[in-house]
C-alpha cells in the first residue's frame, strides 16, 4: 500500500467527528448519511462529506439502497489503523517502565549514601 493511501488513512481517523462516525457504524453495524446525521451535531451534508473521506481511506464501504447508500466499516482496514498506534503506545509503556526502574535504582543508591 502506498504512502499516499496511508496518509489518507491517518488523517481520516485523525478527526473527532469521523471517529464518532466510525464508533456509530461499528455499534450499529452500518448506517446512512441520514441516520448518522440524526445522532451527530452536524448536518447531513457534512456527514456525507466525512463519509467520502472515510471511503477514500478504505475505512468504510458503501452499498446502494434505494436513494441512499448504506455505509459499513471495513474491519480489516480499521484494525490496521488501530494496531499501528497501539504498537507505538506499547513501545512507550515498556520504555517508561525502564525509566522508572533506572530512576528508582539511582534514588535508592543516593538515599543509602546520605543515610550512612
Amino acid at each position, binding site marked *: 500500500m502506498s504512502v499516499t493511501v*496511508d496518509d489518507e488513512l491517518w488523517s481520516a481517523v485523525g478527526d473527532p467527528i469521523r471517529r464518532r462516525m466510525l464508533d456509530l457504524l461499528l455499534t450499529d453495524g452500518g448506517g446512512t448519511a441520514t441516520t448518522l446525521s440524526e445522532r451527530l451535531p452536524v448536518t447531513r451534508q457534512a456527514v456525507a462529506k466525512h463519509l467520502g473521506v472515510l471511503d477514500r481511506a478504505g475505512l468504510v464501504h458503501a452499498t446502494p439502497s434505494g436513494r441512499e447508500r448504506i455505509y459499513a466499516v471495513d474491519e480489516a482496514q480499521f484494525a490496521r489503523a488501530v494496531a499501528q498506534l497501539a504498537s*507505538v503506545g506499547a513501545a*512507550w509503556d515498556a*520504555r*517508561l517502565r*525502564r525509566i522508572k526502574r533506572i*530512576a528508582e535504582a*539511582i*534514588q535508592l543508591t543516593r538515599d543509602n549514601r546520605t543515610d550512612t
Partner: protein
Amino acid sequence: MEFGSIEREIHVDATPEVVYEVVSTPEHLRGWWPDDADLEPVPGATGTLTFGDGTSPDATICPLTVVEADPPKRFSFRWVYEEGEIAAAGNSLLITFDLVSAGAGTLLRMTETGFRERGWEAALLEEQYNDHVSGWDYYLPRLAPYVAGLVQTP
C-alpha cells in the same frame, strides 16, 4: 483514543531531579531506549539516537533537536525528520516529558505528537526505531535461517 498523539504517565519513586537526569542524559537514555545517544540537554542543540551497532552500516542514526530543557520540570525534543532538515512542527514528531512532584516521588508524563501532521509514515518509522530489547525479537528469527544456510553450504 486520540489518534494524533500518544500520552502515557507513570509514577516513579524518585525525585524529579533524578527522573529528569534519566530522561535527558545520553548515559541513561541508552539504558531505556536507543543503543546509543549523543545529545546535550540544551534548547536548540542537535544530537542523534543510534539504533543498532553504531560501527555497522546497518545501524540507524536518527537526528534529534532539543526543544525545551527546563530541569527538573520539562524536557522535550523533536525526532523522526529527514537529515538536513530543520526540525519543526509538521516535519517531525515531538516527545515531551513533563515531571510533576508527587509525594516523595514524581509523576512522569510522556506525550508524543505530530502523527497527524507528519502522517502515517511517521508512525511506521517510530515503530521501526524500537528499543534494543524488543529489537532482538526482530533480529533473532532472521539470524537462524542465515546460520542454517551457512551450515548447509558445502
